[in-house]
């Protein structure tokens, strides 16, 4: 796809092709015709068990058509000191066989006129004479002609870098990244309008800062803070209520801290790029979650560069796997890959982190400090008010810190219906490694604190923990903290009932009493609701069926290991019967027929601007978005689902009618909804079953719709367009459409009408949520503090399940990551942390099989409420309750409530001493 030019640079974004087409089809096209196709299993299965080139790190220049034969290698040198003035470097220690051909520094970027994109604002390289603003900040990029020179150099670097530092300055002071206050005061009854809510009044931020840089949360009457004063006044009233000495109310006031952790995706970040100076063309190969963003960021970086450093074209190619649990969404790494190529023109240059470099430079999960206050009416067991103050460490660059702060704050009341809520949050800069997106995205931290607090409140009342949750559970139609209801199913009560009836819970007292000498046993429960989607999510997809009934699907979603290719195939099959013969992902180069254009920012555009822009039938609020926020099933498959529906309704169904000999005047011709598929056979009561191959042949013969390509946009609701197809107005949850008749080319159809979600939906925290509850039983040895998870159960709801095995696998993987977060993983801040460049696995503990109840973890997935309930995001929610459930089980076993993570055997041993 050719995108709108950025700074005069034409951008192309495409999937990665191999030099040999046959190899590409065998390895990257999924499942790939002519290769073993399992009757069950992932569509990418063969490629992954045969060592096919699927990952960005697998590619060298010789794999790519038209590229130079040889690959050069780059080394990104990062600082391990952020309290002294950077004084440059000395390369002599590298020796003559390990000298770089090119060295790139801050001075070079300034010389050529390179610009840091706003999202990565700051110095891309620390200039000589400045104190680095964070540990891990790049200082230089060394480019080596040969692998041998590179390899020799990196071995030298393992014995210490060659960077020099001067006077001590202390850490660089940088303003907060952002601060918000979310306050809601409900009306007198659940149906009454809110007295105050962010949805009604807009989001507010404090206008004043202390000299330390911390926000002043009091409702001070400052000129720009008028709207803040109103919300803050309600907020302070809630806090006053919580501080009041009311014997009828149980009040708890607790601190909770969570640690920084690494996403620890197994493939370190990597890229390959080649700048051809003759053609002024930059080619780049990456594996990221946000292909569009990466390409646009590179274009901005070089958009105003001097001659020789500003490509006319950027052709970005993306490897099949881009996922990293959020850690490969909007990272600055691609910028350095591009710079490596631009500063070594004519050479293909590979930049790849090793693991210590990934720890030093990759984005981390935010560490949180939280104070939470809860008030509970003792008589009813109902939560009357909740207040919290969050401080999250964003590290050296802003990245997603503001977004994480907002999502964390608006998720801070979990699955509960609380009439008075006041949450402040501030994301601060530090000299630590940059924090960004990671699975759980802030709510892991805040909901862990909440679920531990809720457990303590239940014990203090006293009330059964599940009964306490049940009394306060958010009901369908109930409002979230921002004042809007969820627009999807809310099944809190069912989840709680499942937990309540489970043997782990029912038999907890018996098991506790059965503890072996020297051991203690405890059971914990927790429940979480996790948003999915970002409020500006896009889906691009196309479906085609040929005259033999073979199906091809292309989508723009990125494979994160979550089986998106399989999900696309399965969702399309709901409408067109067959499982696709070909599925490709991370595609944005095959949707030219839609002729999309965009303008403005989907998050900040005004209603008037959106209304005006929408008059252009090619305009959409955004074209493509990152694969993140658990949107794979819900968003990633949406365009393909709608495309498949159109093929059925305007291609396969008319063909089936012809085969059955049913005339258009026959009432049965209007009963398409009553037909259904059994495998690749179309069934209609009273009529002969029809094979898909015959229907497809007929659809082609009569020039029906045999291909559809669509774009969808969600701002907590789908854009809804109306398209005239074959003389019929067809409403669908898409805003752009092209169709193909028979074997013709795709032709764009102008929408007859469109309704984009209102722009004030941007005030919604989230409207999409999935729920998960977890029970764990732990056994702890007194002498050692060793903890064993004896049994566990997670129950979740996620609407229509597209690939049950994938959902189950995500739940199992989420459980493992939750165990790691609760019990194992931690990165100290600052000089002892990953920014020192010395961290690796072994020191950083990730859950292994022996840490998990491999044969004692039960996952239950609730059936959808209705057969047509859409799929919901679930990849994050399955991780969250695991963490507080473990903490609550530890309390049950030890009597000690831990208020920080991780809880190590040493801590448990001390608690039991």
């Amino acid at each position: 796809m050719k995108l709108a030019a950025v700074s005069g640079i034409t951008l192309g974004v495409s999937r990665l092709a191999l030099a040999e087409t046959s190899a590409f089809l065998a390895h990257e096209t999924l499942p790939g015709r002519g290769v073993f196709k399992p009757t069950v299993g992932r569509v990418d299965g063969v490629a992954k068990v045969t060592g096919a080139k699927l990952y960005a790190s697998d590619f060298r220049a010789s794999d790519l058509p038209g590229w130079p034969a040889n690959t050069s290698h780059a080394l990104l040198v990062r600082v391990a000191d952020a309290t002294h003035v950077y004084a440059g470097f000395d390369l002599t220690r590298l020796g003559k066989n390990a000298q770089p051909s090119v060295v790139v520094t801050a001075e070079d970027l300034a010389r050529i006129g390179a610009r840091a994109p706003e999202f990565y604002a700051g110095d891309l390289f620390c200039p000589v004479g400045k104190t680095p603003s964070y540990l891990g900040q790049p200082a230089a990029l060394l480019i080596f002609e040969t692998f041998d020179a590179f390899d020799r150099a990196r071995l030298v670097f393992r014995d210490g870098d060659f960077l020099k530092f001067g006077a001590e300055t202390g850490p660089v002071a940088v303003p907060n990244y952002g601060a918000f206050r979310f306050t809601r005061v409900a009306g007198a009854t659940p149906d009454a309008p809110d007295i105050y809510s962010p949805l009604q009044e807009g989001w507010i931020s404090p206008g004043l800062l202390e000299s330390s840089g911390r926000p002043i949360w009091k409702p001070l009457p400052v000129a720009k803070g008028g709207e803040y004063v109103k919300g803050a006044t309600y907020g302070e009233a809630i806090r006053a209520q919580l501080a009041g000495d009311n014997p009828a109310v149980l009040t708890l006031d607790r601190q909770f801290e969570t640690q920084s952790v690494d996403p620890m995706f197994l493939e370190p970040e990597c890229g390959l790029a080649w700048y051809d100076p003759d053609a002024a063309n930059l080619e780049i190969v990456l594996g990221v979650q946000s292909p569009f963003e990466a390409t646009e960021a590179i274009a901005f970086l070089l958009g105003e560069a001097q001659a020789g450093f500003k490509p006319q074209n950027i052709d970005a190619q993306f490897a099949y796997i881009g996922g990293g649990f959020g850690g490969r969404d909007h990272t600055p790494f691609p910028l350095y890959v591009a710079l490596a190529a631009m500063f070594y023109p004519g050479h293909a240059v590979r930049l790849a982190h090793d693991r210590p470099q990934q720890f030093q430079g990759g984005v981390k999960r935010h560490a949180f400090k939280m104070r939470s206050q809860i008030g509970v009416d003792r008589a009813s067991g109902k939560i009357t008010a909740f207040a919290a103050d969050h401080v999250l460490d964003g590290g050296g660059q802003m990245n997603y810190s503001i977004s994480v702060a907002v999502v964390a704050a608006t998720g801070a009341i979990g699955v509960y219906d609380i009439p008075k809520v006041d949450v402040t949050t501030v994301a601060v800069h530090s000299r630590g490694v940059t924090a960004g997106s990671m699975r759980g995205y802030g709510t892991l931290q805040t909901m862990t604190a909440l679920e531990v607090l809720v457990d303590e409140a239940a014990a203090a009342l006293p009330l059964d923990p599940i009964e306490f949750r049940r009394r306060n559970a958010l009901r369908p139609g109930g409002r979230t903290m921002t004042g809007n209801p969820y627009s999807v199913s809310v099944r809190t009560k069912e989840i709680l009932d499942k937990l309540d009836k489970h043997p782990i819970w029912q038999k907890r007292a018996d098991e506790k009493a059965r503890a072996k000498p020297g051991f203690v046993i405890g059971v914990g429960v927790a429940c979480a609701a996790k948003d999915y989607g970002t409020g500006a999510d896009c889906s691009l997809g196309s479906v085609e069926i040929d005259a033999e009934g073979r199906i091809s699907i292309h989508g723009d979603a990125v494979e994160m290991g979550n089986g998106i290719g399989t999900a696309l195939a399965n969702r399309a099959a709901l409408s067109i019967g067959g499982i696709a013969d070909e599925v490709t992902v991370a595609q944005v180069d095959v949707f030219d027929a839609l002729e999309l254009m965009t303008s403005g920012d989907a998050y900040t555009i005004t209603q008037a601007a959106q209304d005006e822009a929408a008059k252009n039938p090619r305009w959409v609020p955004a074209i493509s978005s990152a694969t993140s926020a658990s949107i794979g099933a819900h968003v990633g498959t949406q365009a393909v689902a709608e495309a498949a529906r159109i093929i059925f309704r305007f291609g396969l169904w008319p063909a089936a009618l012809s085969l059955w000999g049913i005339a258009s005047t026959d009432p049965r011709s209007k009963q398409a909804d009553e037909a259904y598929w059994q495998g690749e056979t179309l069934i209609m009561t009273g009529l002969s079953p029809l094979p898909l191959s015959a229907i497809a042949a007929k659809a082609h013969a009569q020039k029906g719709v045999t291909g559809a390509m669509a774009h969808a946009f969600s701002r907590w609701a789908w854009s809804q367009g109306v398209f005239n197809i074959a003389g019929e107005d067809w409403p669908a949850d898409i805003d752009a459409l092209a169709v193909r008749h028979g074997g013709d080319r795709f032709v764009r159809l102008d929408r007859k009408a469109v309704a984009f979600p209102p722009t004030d939906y941007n005030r919604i925290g989230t409207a999409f949520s999935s729920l998960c509850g977890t029970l764990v039983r732990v056994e702890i040895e007194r002498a050692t503090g060793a903890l064993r998870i004896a049994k566990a159960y997670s129950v979740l709801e996620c609407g229509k399940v597209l690939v049950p095995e994938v959902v189950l696998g995500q739940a199992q993987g989420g459980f493992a990551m939750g165990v790691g977060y609760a019990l194992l993983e931690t990165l100290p801040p600052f000089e002892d942390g990953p920014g020192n460049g010395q961290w690796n696995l072994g020191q950083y503990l990730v859950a292994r099989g022996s840490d998990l109840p491999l044969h004692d973890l039960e996952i239950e997935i609730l059936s959808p409420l209705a057969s047509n309930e859409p799929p919901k995001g679930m990849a994050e929610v399955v991780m969250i309750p695991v963490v507080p459930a473990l903490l609550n089980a530890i309390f049950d076993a030890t009597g000690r409530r831990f208020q920080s993570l991780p809880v190590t055997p040493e801590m448990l041993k001390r608690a039991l001493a």
Partner: protein
Amino acid sequence: MTKLALTINGRAQGPVDVRDDLTMNDFLREVLGMTGTKFGCGAAQCLSCAVIVDLPDGTSHTEPTCVASAASFDGKKIRTIEGHSGDGQLTVLQKAFIEHFAFQCGYCTPGFLNEGQVLLEQLARTPAARADLETIIADALDGHLCRCTGYIKYHEAVRDVILADPHRFLKGG
């Protein structure tokens, strides 16, 4: 420098001069272009880089390649993920991994596949008691890190392959 010659997936490679501090992982990935063997940590902690080493006595084991020099593999016979399937046919373990949805991103799969294959071959030589099977699988796979799956489906895939052919892999089967 060492003149390295070895057999990879049944094919002779070398002799070729390699630096003594070149890792086997880099020899496979950078010199030979065999990128099926992954690089994960460089510290022999994740084992995504593990390959099968076939010994003269007919037994096999896995070894990490990220911390071992290429020179240390001189004269050895190894197998990598690229060498499991032959004549377009997947092995029973490869099929089981696919059909069990054992992996997600798949970056750790080469290591698990090699380890699982070694276990199957070991059990074929020395069958185990059924009662010990889960422990044996857990012990065999525990060194391998997977960040996506929670390991359960890998274990189930290996176990199901064994249980599907008890006469071959289990005592008294």
